[in-house]
């Protein structure tokens, strides 16, 4: 499968990334060889086979639906690039 720099740019936009022109060209070539390698899976007929998304075999146990305070506000905000002491601060949205 041929992958163009324009296709890489579209994928990058979905991933919230913005590689420069040189990287788009580099990635296009690399993606092509990696995806071609992945296409070897098409040799196998998997019709009707149940996908395995996780190796976990035990049933997930749900917690009681009770609110528990697990962290202090100061702790949660302690690594924030910008905060007002109560909330995370971000640039304007609209």
């Amino acid at each position, binding site marked *: 499968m041929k992958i163009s720099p324009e296709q890489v740019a579209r*994928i990058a936009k979905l991933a919230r990334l913005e590689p420069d022109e040189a990287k788009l060209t580099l990635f296009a070539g690399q993606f092509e060889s990696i995806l071609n*390698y992945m296409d070897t899976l098409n040799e*196998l007929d998997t019709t009707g*086979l149940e*996908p*395995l998304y996780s190796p*976990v*075999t*035990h049933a997930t146990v749900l917690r009681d639906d009770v609110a528990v305070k697990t962290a202090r506000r100061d*702790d949660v905000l302690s690594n924030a690039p910008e905060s007002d002491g109560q909330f995370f601060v971000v640039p304007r949205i609209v």
Partner: protein
Amino acid sequence: MSELYAKTLTEIRALLASRAVSAEETVASCLARIHATEPQIQALLSVQAEEALAAARAMDAQGPDPEKPLWGVPVIVKDVLCTKGVPTTCGSRILENFRPFYDAFAVRRLKEAGAILLGKSNMDEFAMGSSTENSAYHPTRNPWDLSRVPGGSSGGSAASVTACQAHGCLGTDTGGSIRQPASLCGCVGLKPTYGRVSRYGMVAYGSSLDQIGPMTRTVEDNARLLQVIAGHDPKDSTCADTPVPDYLAALSRTDLKGIRIGLPEEFWAQGLDPEVEAACSAALETLKSLGAQPVQVSLPHSRYAIAVYYIVAMAEASSNLARFDGVRYGFRDKEASELMDLYVRSRSKGFGEEVQRRIMLGTYVLSSGYYDAYYRKAAQVRRRIREDYENALARCDVLCGPASPVTAWKVGELTDDPLKMYLMDIYTISLNLAGLPGMSLPVGLGKESGMPVGLQLLGKPFAEETLYGIAAALERATPPLGQPAAL
């Protein structure tokens, strides 16, 4: 060597418990070793020297606690594990200033057992890599030959424990990131069964594959660390509520009579480096001399494992790494004018090239129109891979093969060819897809390269004690590698 840092974890633990040495002396010895070796190998991203010495002095004042199995033992953990108040960078610029306000479950268990955290080890950024050259900070060098890589992504932990900077390290293994660097550096690395150790507090890469495990200089040391970090944690729903066996009790077997060792034909096929094959074959002969019986088995879908792995891992990574957006923690680009711009600029400047490559490939295979062709297809083949293991392990107790197709390669040799680098994980990756336990232990030095070779033992779910028993018997019957040649 008679210095304290050269003692095994088991030896130093006994000396500490009997007060023959103090915790402060032990920590000081390892810090001196770090000071002496770190300029050459660069295995660490941070050292908490003052904190470690202060903790040791406080513990000495109290005296040894028999309830704490690692009382006073210095350890180092991979920088992917959250450590309260201590930098946790994941080898990435995007987390350069991140200091978690909590400990990962495994780190908390170590501390509760009396271990003293000396520092955080280097790693490929977000555990994406096979050589520790993808660290955003610096590459780590192999203690046996400074011109060679230590493997990855737990290359910092492997190099650190091999160089005797600490008595034990923790690594993480998503596609072989404990076993492959253990093989390349000549230490013992165990990837436990998926669910044996809680992943709470580990920065996630491929959530259905990641597992935390011990890296040590001996099999017994390894068992002692797993004994402490294994067990149920309600904060990780994938962590199994299964009793933790006595791993140390499994080490006592002197022969391997009645043990069936499965030899997957695909692991011993063409493409294996002759010096790796020679060392692993010699180890196999040792296993046979101890009474083990070889059984030929096959893992017919293993040739698809790398394709399946990278689709699954990259898809999960693209989802997991969406949380790094410059809002709540990590790097934020100051020039952003609006929110979307903030996300894009912060991620583009904060993530390195390999991480961006994997996020984008993951985004691609999950995107509309490609999900069924890639992600669903990979998950279907993943089931076949696990069935292969179930069929093979129904005929034997463990599987055995090399951990890496080659010994450590030169720094920079594969960095321009990501696909070729991915193929270096060919013998380790399928185990993560199946969720089974695996261990690499050193079995000799390559005749040509003089570099360590690791033999891999792969087991049934939650049968780590079987791996430890066989590995301990093999270790006793195998000449030790000696000191790393470059230090």
